[in-house]
């Protein structure tokens, strides 16, 4: 039984995540099998795509049920990019669509908060500002640059659960979260060079 599974539901950058874990000497299994998921110590939820399509695929494969069952058994979950957004209650990408509802908050369009008219999608490297009270991202990551590529972003209801921010469009947006057994990153640690690899390693070390 694999300790770490990467959910394979047709909308993820599975290969890039698996490669970055390989680089760190961590093995992981890409799967959509119910029993493998509910028995994993850590479930990684990747995602490149549109929220609605991705949620539909997850539900069709009953992976939403698998994730919730696993969480009850104290498994941990790590959502990346769209996978991070899917942890929340809903998204407004292509109409209002329900998410997994594991974290309180909504995914909103960057257009709505873009006072200083930054270009959207937000593509490229930005420095993250660390919330000092979080347990996952060490303060030494403050100001370190990671790679973003997204047009929507979650707004968490409970701000103390936000582990890092970035400045965007004249405001601060929630670039990562940590609450109980759930971690999410809007940026791509698997595409953010050595900084990203270190973030992945620290996160996995903390979670399992």
């Amino acid at each position, binding site marked *: 039984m694999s300790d770490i599974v990467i959910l394979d539901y047709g909308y993820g950058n599975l*290969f*890039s995540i698996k490669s970055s874990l390989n680089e760190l000497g961590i093995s992981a299994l890409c799967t959509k099998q119910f029993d493998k998921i509910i028995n994993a110590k850590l479930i990684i939820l990747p995602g490149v*795509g549109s929220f609605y399509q991705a949620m539909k695929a997850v539900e069709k494969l009953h992976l939403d049920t698998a994730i919730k069952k696993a969480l009850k058994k104290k498994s941990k979950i790590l959502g990346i990019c769209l996978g991070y957004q899917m942890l929340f209650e809903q998204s407004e990408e*292509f109409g209002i669509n329900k998410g997994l509802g594991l974290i309180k908050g909504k995914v909103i369009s960057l257009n709505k908060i873009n006072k200083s008219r930054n*270009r959207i999608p937000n*593509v490229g*490297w930005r420095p993250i500002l660390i919330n000092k009270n979080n347990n996952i991202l060490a303060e030494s990551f403050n100001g370190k640059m990671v790679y973003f590529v997204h*047009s929507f972003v979650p707004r968490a209801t409970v701000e103390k659960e936000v582990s890092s921010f970035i400045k965007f469009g004249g405001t601060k947006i929630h670039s990562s979260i940590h609450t109980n057994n759930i971690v999410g990153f809007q940026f791509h640690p*698997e*595409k953010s060079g050595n900084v990203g690899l270190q973030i992945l390693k620290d996160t996995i070390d903390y979670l399992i």
Partner: protein
Amino acid sequence: MLKLRIIPCLDVKNGRVVKGINFIDLIDAGDPVEQAKIYDRQGADELCFLDITASVENRELLLDIVNKTAKNCFMPLTVGGGVKSVKDIRSLLFAGADKVSINSAAIKNPKLITKGANNFGNQCIVVAIDAKISKNSSIKSGYEVFSHGGRVPTNIDAVDWAKRAVSLGAGELLITSMDRDGTKKGFDINLTKKISSSVSVPIIASGGVGCIKDFIDGFQEGGASGLLAASVFHFGKFKIHDVKKELKNKGLPVRI
């Protein structure tokens, strides 16, 4: 603050880099994966692979290159060349690409942009536009779009097409000046500016970079979010980190 991106581009033909490098040992000289690793170490902000043959057999080769690169380089990859369907986009993303660039197929079938964006989000759909100065009065901006690797004139205005591509779902535009490509005379700032001021998505400018000032102008005058270059990096005229240092000295936001 968002950092400006320096993006080396690898034109791939039959699985080899063709704007080749002749300064390192022959065995790896044209190997795209080896070259990608070098650019990764030099601090490239993103890599771009363009498959310029794009036949069916070569598709497998390209997927293999993307795959091997993603295994070794933990950085963003944009891949294009011969992308015709949602299936093509999906297979590139699965191989490790983060963004997929569409050119001729989008001109022929603009719905592909929307389909791609609906499936994978508009952040991952890049529309590549090859543009050339035109004296034709029906081309109002003065720049005409060419398809099929710059071989076929389309009679489409480049600025109009840029706006339409964005409204259909493109999340980024890769603008290549055919007049400047390979000339080292600098980016076509007029073209870059016309398009960057007409749309709200990020623009990557390409074609013509020859000196450091060209990079500065591309960002400051052209309004580009990313600058793409091939030969100046392949032939070793510049190292990426040296370019970024120079840009930093001029007060431009770069990732070092």
